[in-house]
């Protein structure tokens, strides 16, 4: 037997070797982190992290509605705004207002409703992001600065940015928002693209 050739038995032996092995999961994460840092890939919103984010945002929304309290969770540490980019030509802002007609319901039920609303919006292929707003507000006008009172009749309590295919679609998304059901109002405005 020459070293130049393998016998059939030897070939079979090589073929019996295991040729695939799944690498540890952390390698994948490390590579993605490095590629993101170098600007070689963009982060994708997966359903899994979107649901976590949606839950976080829904919880945040509840925190500022009617002074209600929802137990804070670690998921609220997620930077929601960093995860969604809205295409300006399809961008709409949904501004949430509340006045004395706003009557919040059970916190857990509201949480589930907001979460479902966000999941449903995402499932329809529409991107959405948002942020609660503090009560604190100052109106700057000319040389004057007017501080809004804590007990103002109308409050702007948050906003969502939606990437929709039409103005009507953005309005429909707003109409389905649980905020309406509880007596709040939502102002829908398209982005101005020059």
């Amino acid at each position, binding site marked *: 037997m020459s070293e*130049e050739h393998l*016998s059939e038995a030897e070939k079979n032996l090589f073929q019996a070797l295991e040729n695939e*092995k799944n690498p540890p999961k952390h390698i994948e994460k490390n590579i993605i982190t490095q590629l993101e840092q170098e600007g070689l890939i963009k982060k994708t919103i997966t359903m899994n992290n979107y649901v976590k984010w949606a839950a976080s945002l829904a919880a945040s929304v509840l925190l500022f509605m009617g002074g209600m309290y929802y137990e804070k969770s670690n998921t609220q540490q997620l930077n929601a705004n960093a995860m969604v980019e809205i295409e300006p030509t399809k961008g709409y802002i949904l501004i949430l207002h509340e006045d004395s007609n706003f009557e919040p319901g059970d916190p857990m039920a509201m949480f589930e409703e907001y979460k479902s609303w966000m999941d449903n919006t995402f499932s329809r292929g529409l991107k959405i992001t948002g942020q609660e707003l503090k009560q604190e507000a100052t109106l700057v006008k000319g040389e004057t600065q007017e501080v809004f009172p804590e007990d103002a009749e109308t409050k702007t309590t948050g906003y969502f940015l939606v990437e929709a295919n039409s103005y009507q679609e953005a309005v429909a998304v707003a109409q389905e928002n649980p905020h309406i059901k509880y007596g709040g109002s939502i102002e829908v405005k398209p982005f101005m693209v020059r």
Partner: protein
Amino acid sequence: MEDQKLVHEFLKSRSERAFLELYRSKTPHLYRMALRLTQDEYQSEELIQEMWVIAIRKLADFEWRSELKTWLIGILINLSRSKRKEKELSVEITPEMSLDSSSEMSFASAHDLENGIADLPPGYRQIVILHDIEGYKHKEIADLLDITEGTSKSQLFYARKALREYLSEDTSKGKSHE
């Protein structure tokens, strides 16, 4: 999905999702290869990470003169070599070397063979991996490793010889215990 489609999708979107599809289609095979090359899990992980970062940096310039797998293996091997301090063995084959006969590997198991490959010097090991496991020709190996075909042949010659000796000793030890 075909490699070209995976690469096209990735370059078009640069999305994490497209990268993961590409990564997951190729990495289990390459990781197994890295483990064989380095015989060390930590080093294998490092190799795979560095290989992908380099590959993604250069992917837009990849011209498909070889298969994607071969291109990735080339990056992997070069990284492995640059990390390895040991000098490459490079002995040109001579006619009398091919006349020798020795015991076969036929009594060994796949497990013994893995151990035998692990026991080879790194230069021999990579040739056995590329030729006998991956199925590359000497010309392709020469291109991948930037060596001559003669060097590839001679290294395979010595690698198999060493492997047979290892397995022969191993199996005879096994028999003596019986």
